[in-house]
Each structure stands twice: as C-alpha cells, then as structure tokens.
C-alpha cells in the first residue's frame, strides 16, 4: 500500500474509532470492544503495509495539507512516513492491540468500559500523530491530546479515592513541562519562519537561540518522558487500570519525549550545552528510578520506577549522540515493558492485591504468567539473548564513545552517563531479581504487608478481588501476554537485520569490554538479591537497604519538595490574588460608588436649608457673580 494511503489511515482509523466510541452509551460493551480492537487492528495492518514502502531516513518527503496561516506563519498537517517512524508506529500499534484485547477481559465487570476503550483508541491516535508529524504544531496537538487521554484513563477507576488526584497530577506535571515545549516550538518556529520539521532542522538559528529553544523543548520532554525533575507523575499514574499502565509506559506518552528528541537530534547535536544538560538529567533519572524501584512493595510501582530508569537510558543515548541506540532501546523497551505490565496485571487479577508482601510462590499456580515474567524481567535486566541486552549494549557503547570524546557533547557528560548506565545495570538486576523471587518463589504469603512511611499519592491495594486459588488468566489476557513474550525475547535480534540497522544507523552488534562489564554487574546485582533471599526466603531483600529503605520507597521525597516549592506557594498566591482582587481592586470600585452616593447625600443636605439661610446664600451667590463679571469685564 502506498504511504500516501497507509499513513493517514494509521492515524485516522483509531482517531475515528475513539471519537465514535465516546458517543456510545457507557454500558455498550460489545460495540465498544469492536471499535477499540478493530481500530487497533486496522492501524496495525496499516503499519505493516507501510513498512516496506516507507521512506528511508535519508530521503526527504512528506504528505502535507495547508491547515492555517497566522500572519506569515503557516501551519500544515504534514506527515512524514519515514522508515523509523514506521518501526515506532509498528511498536505502538502492536502494544495498542494487545492492550485493547487484554482490556476486554481485564475490565469485564467495569460499567464504564465504553469510554475507556474509546480513550485508549484516542491515545493511540495521538501517539501516532506525534510519530508521523512533520510540523511542530501538529506534533503539539498529538502531544497534548496524549496528556488529556492519560488524565482520563488514570482517573478511570472510580473506586480509588486517589485516582482523581493522580490523574490531575499527571496532566499538570506534564503540562508544566509543556509551557517550555510550546515556547521552544515558538522560538524555533519563529526563527525558522516555519513550523515544518525539515525547515526548522535546516534553518540557521544561531547558538544562543538554538540552545534556548532546545532547553525549552527539553522541559516538555522531561514532563512527557518522566525525566528528573518532572518524573513524579509516573509512579502515581499506577492508579490507572493495569493495561493503561502498559500503554503509557511502553508505547505511548513516555516514549514520545524520547522520539521527539531523536527526531530533532540534528539540532541537539549542534548544541553541546543542551546535550550536557540532557546527560545530567539522564544520569540522575537512571539512578533515581532504579534506586526507588528497589524499595517498593507495590509490584506496579516497581515497574513504574523501572520505566523512569529505562527511559533514562534512552535519553542517555541521546545525550551521548546516538539516536539509533535510543530508538532501539525504545522499541525493545516497548516490548518488554508492555509484557511486564500485562503479566503483572495477570498476577494482580489472580491474587487481588498489588503488594508483593501478599504474593510469593505463584510459580506453580501460574506457570504461563511465570514464564512471561521471567522473560520480561530478563529483558529488563539485560540478560542475553533477550531484547534488553542488545539495546542496552548499544546504549553503553554509545556512552563509552561519548566518554572518549567521540560524541557531539562534552566528554565529561559522556563519562557521567556511562557511569550511571553501568551502575544502573547492577541495580536493575537486583530489583528485577527481587521482584521475581518475592512474587513467584518461596511460600505463599497472605498478609503483613510492609507499610512504607506515608508520602503523597501512595496507592493502597485496589485491583479486582480474587476468587479462589490463583490461576493463569483467561485466553483473552493470555494471548496478548504470549505474543509480547515472544516479542520481548526476539526483538533484540533486529540488531542483526541489515535493513533495520541501516535505517537507524545502528552499529553492528558485537561484544566488547562494555558488554562484559555490564554482564558482570548484572550477575553481581542478581546474585546479591538472590543471596539475601536465600538466607531468609520469607523476608524482603529490600530489608538490606536498612535505613535507606524509607528514603528509596519515598523516592527521595521529591514529591514533598514539589509540594512545598510549587503546589503550596501557587495555592497561597491564588488565595492572595483572590483576596487582593476582591478587597483592593473591587474595593476601589465599590468605594467610588459609595463615595459618590455619600457626597450626593452631603450636598443634598446642604441644599435643604431654611429660608433665611437660603436667601442669604442666594444673595451671596449673586454678589459673587457680579464681582466676577466686573473683574472679567474690567480686565477685558
């Protein structure tokens, strides 16, 4: 199929499915499921049809329609069906289809399934707009609609008292970043005289303007891709149903920021200062996310923090100057993170809680889920030959090259990301092992959850209650998990497909000192967790963290800092503004009115005089007029 047809189709079909779905009555399960699954399936087919016909990255071209013109600035609906975009779109549509199918079973007793399925479709369409957009304003449309859909879906579950708050937080934190994103687009677009990506890339912006514009864009990227310090919304987003977490974490939303930086990377490569900032952010994010993941008891929160950390690897690759490594890791991460969330959903579905302290020993009861989880966690930790191994290796190679001064950014930035990435490997292995052991091995536990010290937005257990003994999920949930298990196992082998490596510009896969080092650290981390668990299978290996455990569990209390530094001052300022507006601004108006009335009363009283005084006043007035007339007349 020609890209002229398949690319618009890819976006329009889920978009229309979503809009139609919103019009359905809430309880209309069957048509809603048909629209949701059908829309995702058609989009997947269109993505497959696009793949052989897509434009290689070195060939220019885009489909474009004039959208609007503001003064001399035009906005186009422009789509660029590049091969890279086609790969990412494939990942998006596969995950979307898996999520839609899985949700049919997972939300089988939800009375608001219809809007849910429609919102997932819209979410998919919005992400696909971001992927194909060749105009920054169009990209912004997809970008923000995704933010809205995440808000709606995170707040979906009405039984959770914290869900509305988490939803608002997700939208507002990303929207705060988008202040920068919009300004960045404005700066670069005005400088280039056009919002078309090709023209923005080709324009000569000058170093100061370029760095300003890119740093502004990075604010938005940090918000969407959950990078420090705007990552705080992502763990709380776990209030959304588990399939939504899979969607947000794997293929949409968090991937969008990374993708946009990759798309505009030629500009970033010209601005070492921006890359240095990106490197520091990436390094902090990798370690922050990984450390926070070590101390969580909620299985979804472990995965959420692992997403923060893994997205950090992608931005690390971008900071090191390698879009190929970033995009490769984006694709493999999409596969294994979607798998991990859907498998975790199966576990939660079976035991009726999110807390690992109430799990354990599920290996025999849920063999299929166990296999899926092993593959997913292995891929996450970077165990060869699973997907994550290959992509993480390319990230490390890129970081090492940057460390040696072969990247576009400063060498010290390369060193920072290289160290953080290596350290992250060990920590990731540790928490992945802990998750596996706590969930599937040892004896069944039923209670006594470890209660971390309270921090804003903590999610209590909330998933559907279990009925009887835990068992593998129904077919509609098992099939997507199975499909993603295979993907997470083999998608890393794309590194050996010449067409793929040529398009992304990926270096050939090979084992060097970085790889060996990483494998050693992986073994070290996993062994540490296992050794600890082996000594006391009933205890949580996280106890080894000692006094750091509450700090890690509370993710370094950045939430509190955000609350103290932004939220509270904003509310205080709002209350002040309201009072000032009512008392001072409106007070002046009211006082003017009241003053005029009072003056009128006073004058009225002065005129209500008795006859003698009135006559005297009239005569005095006449005298005054005569004197004035005489003086004026005399002068004239």
């Amino acid at each position: 199929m020609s890209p002229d047809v398949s690319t618009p189709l890819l976006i329009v079909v889920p978009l229309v499915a979503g809009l139609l779905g919103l019009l359905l009555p809430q309880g209309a399960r069957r048509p809603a499921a048909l629209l949701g699954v059908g829309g995702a399936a058609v989009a997947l087919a269109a993505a497959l049809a696009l793949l052989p016909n897509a434009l290689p990255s070195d060939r220019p071209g885009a489909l474009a329609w004039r959208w609007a013109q503001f003064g001399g600035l035009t906005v186009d609906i422009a789509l660029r069906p590049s091969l890279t975009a086609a790969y990412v779109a494939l990942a998006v549509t596969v995950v979307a289809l898996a999520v839609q199918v899985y949700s049919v079973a997972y939300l089988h007793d939800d009375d608001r399934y219809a809007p849910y399925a429609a919102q997932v479709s819209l979410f998919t369409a919005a992400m696909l707009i971001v992927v194909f957009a060749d105009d920054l304003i169009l990209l912004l449309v997809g970008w923000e609609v995704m933010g809205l859909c995440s808000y709606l879906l995170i707040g979906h579950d009405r039984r959770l008292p914290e869900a509305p708050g988490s939803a608002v937080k997700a939208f507002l934190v990303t929207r705060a970043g988008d202040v920068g994103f919009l300004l960045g687009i404005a700066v670069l677009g005005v400088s280039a005289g056009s919002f078309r990506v090709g023209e923005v890339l080709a324009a000569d912006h000058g170093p100061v303007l370029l760095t300003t514009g890119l740093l502004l864009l990075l604010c938005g990227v940090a918000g969407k891709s959950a990078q420090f310090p705007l990552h705080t919304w992502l763990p709380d987003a776990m209030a959304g149903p588990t399939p939504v977490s899979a969607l947000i974490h794997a293929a949409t939303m968090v991937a969008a920021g990374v993708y946009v930086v990759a798309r505009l990377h030629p500009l970033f490569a010209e601005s070492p200062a921006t890359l240095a900032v990106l490197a520091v952010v990436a390094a902090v994010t990798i370690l922050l996310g990984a450390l926070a993941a070590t101390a969580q008891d909620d299985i979804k929160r472990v995965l959420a923090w692992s997403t923060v950390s893994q997205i950090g690897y992608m931005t690390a690759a971008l900071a090191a100057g390698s879009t190929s490594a970033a995009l490769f890791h984006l694709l493999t991460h999409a596969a294994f993170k979607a798998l991990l969330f859907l498998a975790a959903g199966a576990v939660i579905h079976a035991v009726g809680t999110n807390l690992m302290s109430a799990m354990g020993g599920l290996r025999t009861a849920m063999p299929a889920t166990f296999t899926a989880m092993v593959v997913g966690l292995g891929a996450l930790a970077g165990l060869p030959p699973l997907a994550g191994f290959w992509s993480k290796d390319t990230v490390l190679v890129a970081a090492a090259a940057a460390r040696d001064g072969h990247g576009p950014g400063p060498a010290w930035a390369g060193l920072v990301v290289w160290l953080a990435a290596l350290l992250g490997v060990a920590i990731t292995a540790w928490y992945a092992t802990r998750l596996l052991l706590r969930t599937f091995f040892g004896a069944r536990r039923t209670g006594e959850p470890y209660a971390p010290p309270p921090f804003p937005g903590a999610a209590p257990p909330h998933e559907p209650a279990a009925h009887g003994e835990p068992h593998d999920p129904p077919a509609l949930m098992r099939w997507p998990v199975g499909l993603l298990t295979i993907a997470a196992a083999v998608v890393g082998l794309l590194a050996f497909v010449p067409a793929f490596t040529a398009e992304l510009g990926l270096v050939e896969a090979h084992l060097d000192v970085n790889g060996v080092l990483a494998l050693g650290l992986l073994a070290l981390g996993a062994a540490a967790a296992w050794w600890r668990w082996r000594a006391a299978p009933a205890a949580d290996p996280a106890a080894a963290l000692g006094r750091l455990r509450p700090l890690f569990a509370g993710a370094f209390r950045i939430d509190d800092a955000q609350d103290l530094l932004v939220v509270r001052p904003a509310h205080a300022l709002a209350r002040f503004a309201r009072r000032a507006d009512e008392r001072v601004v409106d007070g002046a108006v009211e006082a003017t009115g009241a003053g005029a009335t009072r003056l009128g009363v006073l004058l009225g009283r002065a005129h209500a005089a008795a006859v003698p005084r009135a006559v005297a006043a009239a005569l005095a007035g006449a005298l005054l007029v005569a004197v004035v007339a005489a003086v004026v007349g005399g002068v004239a």
Partner: protein
Amino acid sequence: MNALLIAVLAVPAAGAAAVGLLPARLDRAARLLGVAVAAVTLVAAAALYRPGGAWSGYGVEGYDVRPWHSVDVPWVPDLDLRFHLGVDGVSYPLVVLTALLTLLCCAYTLKHVPEPGAGRKLVALLLALQTGVLGVFLALDLLLFFVFFEITLLPMYAVIAVWGGARRRRAARKFVLYTLAGSVLLLLGVLAAGSGAGTLQLTSANFDGGVLVFALFALAFAVKSPLWPLHTWLPDAHTQAPTVGSVMLAGVLLKMGTYGLIRVGLGTAPDGAERLAPVLGVLAVAAIIVGSLVCLAQTELKRLIAYSSVGHMGFVLLGIATGTAAGIEAALIGNVAHGVITGLLFFLAGAIKDRAHTGELAELGGLRETAPRLAGLLGFAAVASLGLPGLAGFWGEAFAVVAAVQVGGPLWTTLGVLAAVGAALTAAYFLRLLRLVTHGPAATPPLAGITRAEWVAWAPLVLLALVLGLAPGLVVDMASGAVDALTGAAR
C-alpha cells in the same frame, strides 16, 4: 445585497417589538415567534458571506477599508453623520456567532424560563440586545458605532435586574454604571478621532490618532472586554445573571470590547496603538495571571467561569497588543472560540446549578455518578477552554504566545513566557474544577438527565468547538486580507 445588511438589523429589532408586545396568554407563541425571528436573522447573517471577498490590501493611503457589502446613507448631513454599515472578514465571524448564540438562547428559553417567568419579555430583550450587538459589529460610522454600543446596555441591564439571582439589582446597577463610565471615554475618543481626521467614517484613510485617542479607546474597550484591573463588574454580573444572560454576556457582549479595539482602536490610532502596545501587553498578561490565580482559589462555579473569561480575554488582548498579523489573527479566533466555549460553559453551569440548587464547589461532587452525560459535556467544555490542541481554544492562546515571541525583545519575550505559564495555570484551575465537581463520591441525589431543549442549545456549540479546533482556517483565512491592511497601516 445591501437589503441583507439592513435585514440583519431590522429583523431582530422588529421581532423584539412584536414579541414583547404580545399579551401574556400568548407567551409560548411569542417565544416561538422569537425563535423564528432569531433563526431568520441567523440565515440572513450567514448569507452575508462572500467567498473570496477580502478587505483588500494596501491602498495608496495605507489603511483602506473595502467591506464585502455596505450600506451608506446620510443621517445628519450637517455633522457628516452617516448610516454606514458594512461587513468584512473581521466582523463576519462575530456577526454569525452573535446570531447563533441568540438563536440558541431563544431556543433554550422555550423550555427554561427563569423566575419570575414572562419568557416572551426575556426573548424580546435578547432580540433587542442582538440588534445592538450586531449594529456594533456592522457599523462603519464611529458615532453609529457608539450609539449601538450604548443600546446594548439597557436590555442587558433588564435581563440581569429582572431574571437574575438574589443580589440581581446590585449586580445590574454595577454593570450599567461601570460600563457607562467606559462609554464616556468612548464618546470622547470618537470625538477626538473624528475631529482629528475630519470624518467619522471608518472606511476613510485619514485617521492618524495618537496616544491620546488610542488611550481613550483602549480604556473604554478595556472596561467592556474586560481587561484587568477594570474587570470587577464581570463576576458579579455573571453570578447574578440568568443562564441565557451569562451566555450572551460572555459569548457576545465582551467581544464588542476586543472587536472595538481592533477595528476602532487600531484602525483610527495606529501610531498611538504602537506606542501604547507595551502597556496593553503588560496589562493583558497581568489579566491572564491574575485571572487564573483567582480561579484557582475560587469556590463558586459561575464566578469561576466568569473569572476564567478575564484570563481568556487577556490572551486575546495580548494578541492585539503585539500588533502583528499573527497576533491579531490569533485574537480573532481566540475571540470566537471564547464565545463558543464559554457560552457552552455557562449553559452547563446553569444546568448544574438549576439541578443541584447550589453552585458552591464544596457542595457539588460526583457528577459523573449522578449525571454522567452532563459530566462528560462539562469535561469537554473545560478541556476546550483550557486550550487543548485540536479544540477551538488552542489556536488563540498558542498563537498569542507565538506572536509575542515573534515580536521579540526582552519585554515581549517575557510576556510570552508569562502567558504560557498562565496557560498552565488555566489547566490547573479547570482540572481542580473537574476534580471537585465531576469526580469523587456523589454529593447529591441523581440529577435529571439532559432535556431535548438543552441538547438543541448545546450541540451546535460542542460541534463548533471541535470544528474550529480542527479547521481554524474557517475564521482566520477570511480575515487575513483585512488584518494585513490593518497591520500594514500600523507598521
């Protein structure tokens, strides 16, 4: 086509008289007649469109007005007063918006008559109001413009003072006195501009008002728009006005201020506008920030939406203040979008208040349990209002920021940044509103579903919010020629 222009004004004027004079026993028939009159007016207004007709370009003199249609007859020849009407790409969207909102309000009044009843009189006043507003948008004679500007005050006063809430008289009095004070300045401005140019016809190229003329106009229109800190009549008026009153006030009346600033302010005093632009820009951004902050701490539904208008009109005024083609076009679409979206928001707020018998945010809650469709619509309107890309509100706000960045320099860049921050604050207070009103446990027993009259009144606005978001060119493109002429004169 000149007959059409006359008809757009004459039909609602005659309709108002007819509807108002019908006896009480024909109340329902009178209201039906009102709807028919409003519908005819809408058709006539829409028919004014001339495809490809632009307010074309740069004449030798610079500022050259060429309306699509015009009527120009002497009125008081000795004073060079003319009954001069015309429509072009700047006024056309507002003319249609006015006719549409009036029709929707009249249709809504078929079923929903606020206390103390006598719906035919309310409809008659709405039609009279419409006549005045359409006159403002069509007038090309400055004094005629002023006359229509004043005519709108009386029906609006009556609507608030008779059909309003508990403190209606006070709010109506404040509205009238405050905006009358603005009108005095407008009259002074008209006289100053007219005596300077030797003509009152806006089609003339002779206007070259300076700082004084623009300052007079800016102050007068700032009261109407309203621009911070001249806005405090608005929350009181909105809170007390009946639903249809609020819709007309936000959707149509405020637009006279921004339209006047573009057509009369920029048109007659381009030099003054350029000199005072920084002041206007700073105040506009202050309106955005203060308006959003007040909304964040607001506790009453209608008051919150009223204050949100202050913020939104701040974006429109920022666009005008930049003086660039991009900024003014952003202001035009922002103007129309605000009319559509805030009109819808006031309809919804009225419906919620009528059903729950309270507008206090603390006493509402769980609307998605008690009235899911209403909650969905409120969510849509709120999201449209916070400027979600893809819906109508986005273009005006985003391109006001882009235009400020485009002007460049430390001042305008700062203004652009602050305006963008204001957009984030807008999201914050609308999400707070949704969280308090739609989420959480149900605070009231299940509310009545949406009636057919309500669907009829709301559906066009929902649709327009979506259509203008997807096709902003509908408004922007037809105005581009006129805006080029205007900025060509200003630069």
